[in-house]
């Protein structure tokens, strides 16, 4: 069961689908060697941090530091030099200034649910966790925004405005745990992003502390940049440009209602064509989810949601008033029936709606029952769906590993799950190679390596598949401006060889 991960991959075990497991042996991931001068100056550095923070906000005990040794990509672990848990922007600024003067790398951390190793420390780094900064600073319904400290969890942002009939739209499946800080750093998506967009489309402004301790405001409740859109580039920069301590977020009035339908097809191509027709017709479902046969079968065996046994299945959800829902579903039915589905099932009530979602929501868990698996996150143009699914099927035969597909079909963000047996020698390596091939295929058809999980360390070394040197150079220039010493989360996003001279400088 315990496994190691390679490039582009989340590994999940059959026993617990949420977590990854470490192989005691060596891993494929390279990290820079820690700076021995920093390691030997630990006592002085910790004393300096204690000088600027309350006593309970600095952790240097090795046992306690274990809590910060990894994020949700748990195959890679390394305790940091120290961890700090500030409560205010001023404390964050003081920590960063101290580390900047000492030349100590800092790794920002929200809730540690990154699947890409974004919050993985190195031995010579200080983890700066914002978990204690979870206050709501301002709710303004008239102007439709909320201002929060960045450590607040995603779900509790919606929770804070729910009573007034509002919500915060980006809703990653990890929303119970993940923090707004991590959402901003990763530009996270969610089940509803087809209609409402991802984090960057719902972010109005931030308070950002640069590595040298300077505090800045980017954007604001008016939601428009005054000059260059620096907020736009900070969002999704994976904690490499500054530490976000506060954020203004757009909140939206809740729709009156929502309802899903389930449509089964005898081929992936036809299901893909149906998705294209729905989109083309100008319908805007909040979600269009896709599952293929291996995934449907696994899910049925596990969750018994009563799904039809077919080649491909779509779950489509629409929102609005009762009348609006009926109007949209009638149109969707008309489009779907033209594609000769094996089944068209509309939820008549709340219980049936739940059953339609049940299988989809248990899909990852169900696949985990069959075997260990890894989950990919590439995006493809929706029109390439049939081609990519066919190629994945062919590769599955070539590699001798099964794969199930469950993903957000409306926006082409795929999550292929490759099944393997971690106890079988060679299976894992095959699986990693298969995963990398799928991501390369995503890029080849005009897509990208990651749609919502981020690059982190996980996809770092595949960046050159998608980007030419000049493309990465342009991105790294942005970091040069925000963090000229490359101290903030330095070993992420760019291939180590590509960023080597900058990190050394």
């Amino acid at each position, binding site marked *: 069961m315990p496994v190691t991960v390679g490039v582009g991959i989340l590994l999940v075990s059959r026993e617990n689908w949420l977590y990854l497991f470490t192989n005691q042996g060596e891993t494929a991931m390279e990290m820079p060697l820690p700076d021995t001068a920093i390691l030997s100056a630990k006592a002085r550095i910790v004393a300096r941090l204690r000088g600027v923070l309350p006593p309970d906000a600095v952790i240097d005990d090795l046992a306690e530091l274990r809590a910060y040794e990894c994020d949700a990509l748990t195959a890679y672990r390394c305790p940091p030099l120290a961890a700090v848990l500030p409560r205010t922007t001023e404390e964050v600024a003081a920590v960063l200034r101290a580390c900047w003067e000492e030349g100590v790398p800092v790794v920002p951390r929200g809730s540690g649910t990154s699947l890409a190793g974004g919050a993985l420390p190195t031995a010579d780094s200080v983890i700066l966790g914002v978990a204690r900064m979870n206050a709501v600073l301002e709710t*303004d319904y008239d102007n439709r925004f909320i201002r929060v400290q960045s450590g607040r969890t995603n779900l509790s942002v919606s929770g804070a405005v729910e009573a007034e009939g509002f919500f915060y739209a980006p809703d990653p499946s990890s929303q119970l745990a993940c923090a707004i800080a991590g959402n901003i750093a990763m530009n996270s998506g969610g089940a509803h992003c087809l209609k409402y967009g991802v984090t*960057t*489309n719902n972010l109005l402004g931030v308070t950002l502390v640069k590595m040298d301790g300077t505090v800045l405001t980017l954007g604001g409740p008016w*939601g428009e940049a005054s000059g260059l859109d*620096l907020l736009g580039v900070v969002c999704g920069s994976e904690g490499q440009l500054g530490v976000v301590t506060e954020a203004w977020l757009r909140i939206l*009035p809740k729709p009156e209602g929502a309802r899903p339908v389930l449509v089964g097809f005898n081929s992936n191509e036809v299901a893909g064509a149906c998705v294209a027709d729905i*989109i*083309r017709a100008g319908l805007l479902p909040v979600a269009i989810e896709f599952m293929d046969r291996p995934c449907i079968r696994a899910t049925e065996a596990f969750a018994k949601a009563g799904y039809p046994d077919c080649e491909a299945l779509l779950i489509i959800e629409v929102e609005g008033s009762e009348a609006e829902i009926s109007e949209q579903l009638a149109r969707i039915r008309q489009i779907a029936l033209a594609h000769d589905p094996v089944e068209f099932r509309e939820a008549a009530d709340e219980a049936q709606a739940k059953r339609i979602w049940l299988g989809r929501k248990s899909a990852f868990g169900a696949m985990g029952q069959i075997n260990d698996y890894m989950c990919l996150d590439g995006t493809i143009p929706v029109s390439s769906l049939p081609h990519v699914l066919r190629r994945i099927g062919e590769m599955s035969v070539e590699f001798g590993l099964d794969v199930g597909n469950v993903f957000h079909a409306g926006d082409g963000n795929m999550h292929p799950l490759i099944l393997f047996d971690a106890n079988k020698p060679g299976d894992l390596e095959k699986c990693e190679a298969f995963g990398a091939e799928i991501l390369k295929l995503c890029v080849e058809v005009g897509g990208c390596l990651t749609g919502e999980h981020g690059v982190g360390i996980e996809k770092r070394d595949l960046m050159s598949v998608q980007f030419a040197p000049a493309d990465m150079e342009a991105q790294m220039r942005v970091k040069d*401006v925000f963090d000229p010493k490359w101290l903030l989360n330095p070993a992420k996003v760019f291939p180590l060889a590509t960023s080597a001279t900058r990190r050394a400088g």
Partner: protein
Amino acid sequence: MRPVTEAELAEAIAGAAGPLLVRGGGTRTIGRAVGEVLETGGLSGVELYEPGALTLVVRAGTPLAEVEATLAGDRQRLAFEPPDLRGLLGREGVSTIGGVVAANASGPRRVQVGACRDALLGVRFVDGAGNVVKNGGRVMKNVTGYDLVKLLAGSHGTLGVLSEVSFKVQALPEAEATLVIEGLDDATGLAMLRKALGSPFDISGAAREGGRSLVRVEGMAGSVAYRTGQLKALMAGDVTVVEGAESAALWRRVRDVTAFAGRPGAVWRLALVPTAAAGVVAAIGGEAVWDWGGGLAWLLVPEGQAEAVRATVAGSGHATLIRGEGAVVFPPEAAEVAALGAGLRARFDPRNILNRGMMG
């Protein structure tokens, strides 16, 4: 200079002896830059259009009108409703899609679907050293590397010259209707807009012009009828409903700030906290067209009031001089934010040749 390929564009920039004035159609340029004119109009044409995937990839010098016609042919459109400011600015010429992106030009529908930058999926551009750079792509979800797409949108040609842009586009709705609300003062009229935006009825426009508040809904016919009815009950004042072409004409006026075209005076564009909008405008004086529920105010005032405008706006938003004399065009920024902007420009355009002096 008028390159017709990206390679020629790169050559022109790499070989430039002095500053370059980057020009699409010159229909929405604000700010004052100097240099030899570099026209992008030669980089024209649709590269890829997939209506079923809502994606359009187009070369940056393509006329906006051509883009819009291509999309309309498949009953689609640019969701962010780019304004045509030729009347307001007194310009002629052919607006290009690259110019739209460089200005992040976004119209009334921003309250529902976001700005140009939110629909922009990818860019190709040539930086000030002549390097060809790509970022983003043509897919709707992409977090691979830094988001330079957002950075280039609204950079007014100061970081690079766009050669290709890709968008998520939108299907034309089946129906549209606008509630026209009369008989309210500005403060109350703007409050009605915020009330509509705070309702679950998915508003696609919330503006105020000529003493009338306008609230737009779009979508399937039944849904538009339903939401119009619900909103009517929510609004105070005298409400009438207009539909179809008549509704569309109202929004073109708001989008293009037609009310101020050809009239003397300076035009300011204020980004505001909506609840502050009425007060800020009353304090400055002048005539306003409000959009985005008050989040945007176009203000017509006599020339020479820059200091009063900026002082009044401070704390509630910021002000850009769209048309007028003398004053600094872009809003002043906090020193440490301005330093980041200057730092980026220095890295992307080390010789300071792209639209020199445009944004500071």
